[in-house]
């Protein structure tokens, strides 16, 4: 185990933000921390990163490196008046790491940024800042990276590129990555494990695939002639433009699809819809 946070509690006055939170992370795996806004994700990350102190509980990181853990909390905070080189130089220097031209080029290529750009970072897009923030977090090769809402504000291309980068860091560099998000679809195909934080407590944990599957109650079916279907009239179906939301209760989704095909409906897609209320809440715990 590379990181273990046990029974973490944090309060601000009478407000309990985290209540006995325990998470365990293994080398090279990607962990997702999901929960609604205000669930306590960022507070937990700040504690893991040592920015704030917990009231009780312990954190153990099994690493002998200079920098056991790195990360980005909320938005990447960079010196806007400095270039990418200037930023990396400052953050390398303070941890007594000499930023050579080779290291700079390597760091920039690792996160998919061009080392040729010389202008101030304030001109960068959010996606580029995220990447530069990640390059800074990766200085001195930490064993674990914590990324708080890394996809927030990124366009679909940016999200896709960051997905690939995170997977690459996990697989090729064996870095443990912990990501938070309140958008489940972003984490669904990225994470090995999920922790669900609700009102400061971990209420669910397990493999991402299992947790998401358990909380899928509705499917979005698209196809031709859906409105003519007799099968859909017998299940709870909500018709939308060229698609329908189906929540089968007495039969499985495969049975519904089979009957639709037998009816002559041309199904073009069937996308499971995670029940966020069930996943984020205490229902089914």
């Amino acid at each position, binding site marked *: 185990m590379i990181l273990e946070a046990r029974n973490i509690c944090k309060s601000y006055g009478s407000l309990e933000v985290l209540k006995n939170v325990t998470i365990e992370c293994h080398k090279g795996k990607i962990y997702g921390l999901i929960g609604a806004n205000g669930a306590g994700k960022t507070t937990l990350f*700040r504690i893991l*990163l*040592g*920015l*704030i*102190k917990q009231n009780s509980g312990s954190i153990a990181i099994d690493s002998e490196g*200079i*920098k056991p853990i*790195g*990360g*980005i*909390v*909320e*938005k*990447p*905070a*960079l*010196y*806007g*008046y*400095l270039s990418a080189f*200037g930023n990396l*130089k*400052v*953050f390398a*220097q*303070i*941890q*007594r790491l000499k930023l050579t031209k080779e290291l700079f080029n390597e760091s920039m290529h690792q996160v998919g940024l061009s080392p040729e750009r010389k202008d101030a970072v304030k001109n960068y897009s959010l996606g580029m800042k995220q990447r530069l*923030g990640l390059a*800074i*977090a990766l*200085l*001195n090769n930490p064993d674990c990276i914590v990324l708080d809402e890394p996809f927030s504000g990124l366009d679909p291309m940016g999200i896709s590129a960051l997905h690939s980068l995170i997977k690459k860091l996990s697989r090729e560099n064996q870095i443990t990555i912990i990501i938070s998000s309140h958008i489940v679809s972003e984490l669904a195909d990225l994470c090995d494990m999920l922790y669900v934080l609700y009102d400061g407590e971990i209420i669910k944990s397990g493999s991402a695939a299992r947790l998401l599957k358990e909380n899928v109650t509705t499917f979005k079916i698209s196809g031709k002639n859906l409105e003519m279907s007799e099968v859909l009239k017998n299940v709870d179906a909500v018709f939308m433009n060229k698609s329908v939301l189906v929540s089968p209760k007495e039969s499985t989704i495969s049975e519904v699809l089979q009957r639709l095909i037998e009816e002559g409906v041309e199904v073009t897609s069937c996308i499971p819809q995670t029940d966020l209320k069930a996943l984020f809440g205490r229902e089914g715990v």
Partner: protein
Amino acid sequence: MISLIRSEIYKIGKQSKTLYALAAILIIEGFVIMSAYYQGAGIIDLLLDNLKESFEFQGNLLNGNLIIYLILNSLWFHVPLILMIIISGFLTSEYKDKTIETVMLQPVSKLNFILSKYIVSIIFTLLIVLILAVTTFLISYWIFGYGDLVVYLDGLNFFESEDASYRLINAFLSGTITMVFFSVVSLTLAVILKDATKTWIVAAIFLICSNLLLKIDFNNEIINELFFSKLTDSWQYFFYYEVPYSSIYFKNILLLAYSILVMVIGVLIFKRRDIQG
């Protein structure tokens, strides 16, 4: 620690506000010189009209030494105010931009980080006062030349040109310690308040109150001798005929002790607090 100090110096060198600070200092200097150039002679004549009938003055009284003395008096308010604004910004801007979080996410101790801020603030203060002093001496002597210095301090005091230069240099050196005190206070205020505007307001109030308290007699010898605001004027003592060196040394050493105390308070508060931008 050295690497932290170097990175702080690098950041300061790259920020435009450093140039603004320098420009502000030089603009104040320029205004004093310009107004002296156009109106100074008339004012001096008006002030010394009666005395000129009884005494003989060597050279022009509107000379470089008088201009340096006038600029030196910006150490009362203008220079410390600019220093307090800029130096508190070294930390408040890190809170505003949340870069302090990115710094503390690296393997850096909070103690070393905040100590490096204090050390760089002191270096910056020394540099600003040095630039002010050097440019003041060069420009003033170049434009207005040398001459006897007349100063009003509990009455009119006159100093010969060479003696005046010596006293002015010492006054700048002594004033530097006062500037360091105000700089350290401003950084500690930034540690406490985090927000730039709040820190500027409190720093300005601190400076004004400090100058007001300096003039108040507390009717208590210990307070009058030891209270911090009573220690910030030692640089003026060089313009008494008999320079009270022991008093200057005492005041400066005590002011340095106050600076260290304020710095220790700032360090302790910073270390205890969570890092949140």
